[in-house]
């Protein structure tokens, strides 16, 4: 086996990011002030940019295997890896002030973020059950540690513990399913498993159990009902910077493993997992949207909103065809962009002593910061899926693909619940625009509150204005993302 056969260029971005993460870890030792990240922050950003550029460079390459078939490089992987790197860079950019004020901004935090990015990229390029599992665990361990790093917070410790225990359980379930699948098909490589479907039919009970366990593990990682319990507590308990990290970008990787496992590995047993996903989707949309109404804390509200969005994402998978997958791909990319914007605004509004995380903190925002209120307005309408925002196009695509596959009842149910969902997004708009600032607001004296860094505001504004879907941008994005899946399949 020569080096050329390993096809290392495909895993180039992963290699660069992980090597640089190690370098940063060493550089950190020589930094004088442990509380400030010093040169590490620019280094991390440069690393992520390099990762994004390298990944993006592969998007028009033909699909190829690397590392003896452990990893696949195809246009979807290239796009998702690039988006992951950019997303993590955005997270770091947004988190900086907030994390610095809370003593979280240390070398380790950035290194964990980078290793988490490597984990996600590994998941995205996985062509093998082991690769999926390794990537998943790498990401999960980084997340546990990042949440737990806020040592003076009881809630963060609780969140980390809950996430860790439940996450370990879900990993176990997933691993159990994978091992059963290995026993049945004799291979861990996804194309080989797919090929085994010729002889292995759904009459086999072990196969059904394996599929059920794998789907359960995946649903847990997505945070879909009935495996959603961790989502609100973890979102709420973590420092907002960490919540931003774990809410936005990992959904891209979760989409990718769903795509690899269901689209390639288990693709021919569609009938077995289709109904599971349909039920999970409907329940997620229902429960997420209904319970979100009762929340007073915006992070919890967004957590339940995430659950419902994952339900919509699953709608794209119901048909088990490339059409639906590309709809889900657009959905997840747009969702990640919106989430970045949403938490970005919460981070802007928080300052060193003040957590802007209850809904009432948004009262009268239009009077204090008209521009931020306007941005939040776009985010909320985008989450609710109201045109002309990108969120509408995302919903349009997945609903269309589900209708095409004949799930009319599911779609009608989903849109009816979307109306329920619109209520709590509207409530945020109501608080910002209709209510005026009064005595009950807990925000600190000396309005108009924190003044964010100018660069931060520019990026945030650009991030959110991208969501205005009336521009030709969304059309091109959707077109472009769907071409990425044109020749998707096992090789």
């Amino acid at each position, binding site marked *: 086996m020569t080096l050329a056969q390993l096809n290392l260029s495909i895993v180039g971005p992963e290699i660069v990011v992980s090597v640089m993460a190690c370098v940063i870890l060493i550089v950190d030792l020589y930094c004088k002030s442990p509380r400030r990240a010093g040169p590490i922050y620019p280094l991390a950003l440069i690393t992520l940019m390099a990762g994004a550029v390298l990944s993006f460079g592969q998007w028009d390459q033909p699909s190829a295997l690397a590392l003896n078939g452990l990893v696949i490089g195809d246009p979807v992987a290239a796009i998702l890896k690039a988006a992951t790197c950019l997303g993590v860079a955005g997270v770091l950019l947004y988190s900086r002030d907030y994390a610095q004020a809370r003593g979280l901004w240390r070398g380790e935090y950035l290194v964990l973020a980078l290793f988490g990015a490597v984990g996600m990229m590994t998941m995205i390029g996985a062509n093998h059950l082991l690769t999926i599992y390794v990537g998943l665990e790498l990401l999960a361990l980084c997340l546990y540690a990042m949440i737990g790093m806020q040592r003076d917070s009881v809630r963060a410790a609780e969140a980390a513990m809950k996430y860790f225990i439940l996450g370990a359980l879900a990993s176990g379930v997933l691993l159990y399913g994978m091992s059963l699948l290995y026993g049945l098909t004799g291979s861990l490589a996804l194309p080989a498993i797919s090929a085994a479907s010729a002889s292995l039919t759904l009459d086999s009970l072990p196969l059904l159990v394996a599929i059920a366990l794998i789907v359960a593990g995946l649903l847990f990682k997505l945070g879909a009902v009935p495996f959603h319990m961790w989502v609100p507590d973890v979102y709420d308990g973590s420092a907002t910077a960490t919540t931003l990290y774990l809410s936005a970008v990992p959904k891209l990787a979760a989409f990718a493993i769903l795509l690899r496992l269901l689209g390639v590995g288990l693709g021919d047993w569609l009938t077995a997992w289709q109904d599971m996903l349909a039920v999970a989707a409907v329940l997620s949309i229902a429960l997420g949207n209904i319970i979100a109404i009762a929340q007073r804390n915006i992070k919890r509200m967004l957590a339940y909103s995430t659950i419902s969005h994952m339900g919509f994402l699953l709608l794209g998978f119901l048909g088990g065809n490339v059409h639906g997958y*590309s709809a889900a791909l657009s959905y997840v990319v747009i969702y990640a962009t919106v989430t970045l914007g949403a938490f970005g605004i919460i981070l802007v509004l928080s300052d060193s002593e003040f957590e802007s995380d209850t809904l009432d903190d948004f009262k009268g925002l*239009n009077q204090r910061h*008209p521009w931020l209120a306007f941005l939040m*307005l776009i985010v909320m*309408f985008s989450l609710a899926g*109201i*045109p*002309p925002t990108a969120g*509408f*196009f995302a919903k*349009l*695509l997945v*609903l*269309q693909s589900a*209708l*095409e596959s004949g799930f*009319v009842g599911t*779609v*009608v149910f989903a*849109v*009816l619940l*979307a*109306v329920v969902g*619109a*209520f709590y997004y*509207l*409530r945020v*708009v*109501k608080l910002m*625009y*209709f209510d005026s600032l009064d005595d009950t607001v807990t925000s600190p004296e000396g309005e108009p509150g924190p003044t964010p860094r100018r660069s931060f505001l520019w990026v945030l504004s650009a991030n959110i204005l991208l969501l205005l879907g*009336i521009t*030709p941008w*969304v*059309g091109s994005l*959707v*077109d472009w993302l*769907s071409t990425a899946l044109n020749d998707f399949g096992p090789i």
Partner: protein
Amino acid sequence: MSWFDQHLLSLVIWFPVLGGILVLSTGSDRNAPVARRLALGIAITSFILSLPLWTRFRLDTAAMQFVERQPWIDRFNVHYHLGIDGIAMPLVLLTTFLTVIVVIAGWQVIRERVAQYFASFLIMEGLMIGVFCSLDGVLFYLFWEAMLIPMFLIVGVWGGPNRVYAAIKFFLYTLLGSLLMLVALLYLYNATGGSFNILTFAQLPLDGPTQLMVFLAFFAAFAVKVPMVPVHTWLPDAHVEAPTGGSVILAAITLKMGAYGFLRLAIPIAPDAAHQLAPLVIALSLVAVIYIALVALVQQDMKKLIAYSSISHMGFVTLGFFIFDTRAMEGALVQMISHGFVSGALFLCVGVLYDRLHSREIASYGGVVKVMPVFSFFLVFFAMANAGLPGTSGFVGEFLVILGTFSVNGWYAALAAVTLVVGAAYTLWMVKRVAFGPVTSPAVAQLQDLSGRETLMLLMVAAGVLALGLWPLPLLDVMHASVDNLLAHAAVSKL
């Protein structure tokens, strides 16, 4: 076609939207005078820009005119596809005209967040014109829903005491119907094998049960918007709480979007279902015409009275559509335009009173004619128009609808004609209590008559009402070819 013709609709849609953003950028209330003048300039310019749509309109064809078509999302075959026919063109002009009035109406009254107020109306103007011009399903839906956002803000930010409830109710009601329409549009996309073109939808053969489902989905969206009984309850709330300008736009244009939807989507796409369900729609329309008129009779609040009167008048419109008769449908279309003027003007009149006394209760007034003679003249004039006095625009529409209905079913016509009596009763009774009689309170005695600005805006609308009432022929000519074409299309079964 010239370059100008091909891009005129885009210009009419996007000019006010961009202008609205410009107004928004004037920022805080310190620059309010700039924002007002800028908004007025933009509103007048967009009205002037929309005039060529009328002067260059070809009367001899039912085909879409001023068509513009660009690919937008290739993957879904979504096009940026605009075009208008004789049904849409008058509504576009109505929108641009009333936006000017609304800007004048808000001139001195709005003192908080002035730039945002005017920007909302300008952006909404563009979006509503977009609804009337879209020939692509996604584009139509996009404009249809997007205009909810500025309207939601207008009601919620500048509205009355119960504005939050009204704004959220308005939004959720409309959203519920609209999302069902979205499902129908997606279904049609799949059924046509990948096209969102509304004109293609109209040619698509569909079997009976499918047509019924599609029609009901559209019905959910449009019946809420019109609104028809029993999904009308958002309207009195929204009207009462909205600021004057918001009420005018809601009554004059937003409601017409629902009616327009029936003609552009529901009837052409599912003609058999439309015929099958016509008795139901007619029954609901007649309930609106009669029952809601009776409800209007007992209202204590002037805005609520006009809101119920709107529902009743829109019942006439849907009645005219589903009789499937040329005269009735043209009458319904005239009624749409006329109601846009008249209800808008009545809301402006209430706004004039409200600005002075901060009360909408009929009981707070009395003898207004003694202190505000010019105002009372306009009030009586528009009340007469609302009651359908010959010579005003209200008469033409109602007369044509009743005439058309009579040729199809005498009983329907007889029932519909009841409203001429009840309508006159509630409107004139309100006028009697507000304007005539002795001066009831010292507050009324101190009222100032109309300012030049208020006279100007009421005069402009009054001119429209009179012109349409005395000489409706140009309007009928514009819509004639399109209405004939639509009825011919609807008469052919798709089964």
